[in-house]
């Protein structure tokens, strides 16, 4: 029962790569076999987030071009046995791969892995078409900004046109305080427009930047709220029913938890 999931958004900088890294790490931490594909050819980042940059020998285009075996290009994660990365090429561009090759690649990977997660590049051109070609499911990432939601809406339409129905939504970088003051789009506002199933909400959190720069995934940080959010999303991906996190920390319980160190 393997799944090929593409993480996409349309707009850049909303957290596709961060989400891919965290969901992959989170699933691997639960002893699943996971392959992450960086489909952002020419602007690879996923290897950096996972701290695997200096281990790259072969990349995605080497595999699709037949220059190496798939096994040779897969890089094993530092922390988890079951987590592998197929890095993107940095010295080529999106035209180096075509959708047919991506389909074949995904079909090969599902033979061995329970989850294949594809990090889609920003935009809706060839890179996007390559990334979604082999996927069976899609996760759309957006931030609570009008432009990001607009682009997410466009992408949902394109996914539907490509027969990738019922994508799920991750809202990233939500700032509950700003929402409360009416200065930021709320979860409801976003769902109202996109009308797709909500997979999870990740609050804005400095810990994401800190762990990213260290080449760690915040999902492993037991104390951070964003880590908790990602762990919840991972459990929902596995089919568990997990209630949405209470993002409002101003209540008594929230204050108390903060005081005693549960962020």
């Amino acid at each position, binding site marked *: 029962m393997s799944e090929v999931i593409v993480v996409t958004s349309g707009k850049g900088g909303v957290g596709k790569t961060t989400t891919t890294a965290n969901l992959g790490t989170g699933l691997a931490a639960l002893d699943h076999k996971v392959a992450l594909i960086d489909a952002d050819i020419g602007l690879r980042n996923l290897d950096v987030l996972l701290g695997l940059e200096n281990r790259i020998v072969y990349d995605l285009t080497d595999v699709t071009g037949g220059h190496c075996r798939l096994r040779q290009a897969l890089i094993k994660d530092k922390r988890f046995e079951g987590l592998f990365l197929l890095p993107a090429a940095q010295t080529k561009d999106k035209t180096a791969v075509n959708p047919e090759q991506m389909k074949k690649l995904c079909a090969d990977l599902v033979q061995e892995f329970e989850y294949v997660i594809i990090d889609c590049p920003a935009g809706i051109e060839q890179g996007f078409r390559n990334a979604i070609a082999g996927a069976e499911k899609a996760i759309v990432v957006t931030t609570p900004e009008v432009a990001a939601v607009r682009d997410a*809406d466009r992408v949902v*339409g394109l996914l539907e046109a490509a027969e990738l129905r019922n994508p799920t939504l991750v809202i990233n970088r939500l700032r509950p305080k700003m929402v409360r003051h009416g200065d930021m789009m709320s979860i409801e506002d976003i769902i109202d427009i996109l009308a797709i199933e909500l997979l999870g909400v990740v609050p804005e959190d400095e810990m994401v930047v800190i762990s990213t720069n260290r080449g760690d995934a915040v999902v492993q940080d037991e104390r951070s709220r964003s880590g908790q959010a990602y762990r919840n999303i991972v459990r929902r991906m596995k089919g568990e029913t997990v209630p949405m996190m209470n993002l409002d920390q101003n209540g008594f319980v929230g204050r108390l938890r903060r005081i005693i160190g549960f962020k």
Partner: protein
Amino acid sequence: MVLEMQEQGNKKTRKAQEIDDLVDDNTILVRRTLRSGQKINFSGNVVILGDVNPGAEVMASGHVVVLGALRGMVHAGAAGDEQAVVVAFRLQPTQLRIANHITRPPEDESARPSQPEIARIKDDVVTIEVFQTGGERQGFVV
């Protein structure tokens, strides 16, 4: 994605002809939400069972009815019919055009309409009113 829905050549039986006299013959039913970048262009009336999201476009030579929120761009009477109307459960378009009139919502107003509204040309001005059932009150005969 561009959806070009063309008028279908309809063979009219006598019975159909009689019905045609009562209703407009060309109406298309769109059974989904139009998302950003999607477009409907139809010569006739358009009825949408879903929302029209920002960045989506609906162009019709006749009326446009949206059974949902209309947040995108809409052009009714695109061939010049000033009698064309736009009706939506939540009428909050980015831009609304009827025939050769182009309007946009007032800058300062962010209130959500709570009732279905109708837009049409009255005295050469596009006006928006609460939609009330009953053809006569609406000023056009169905």
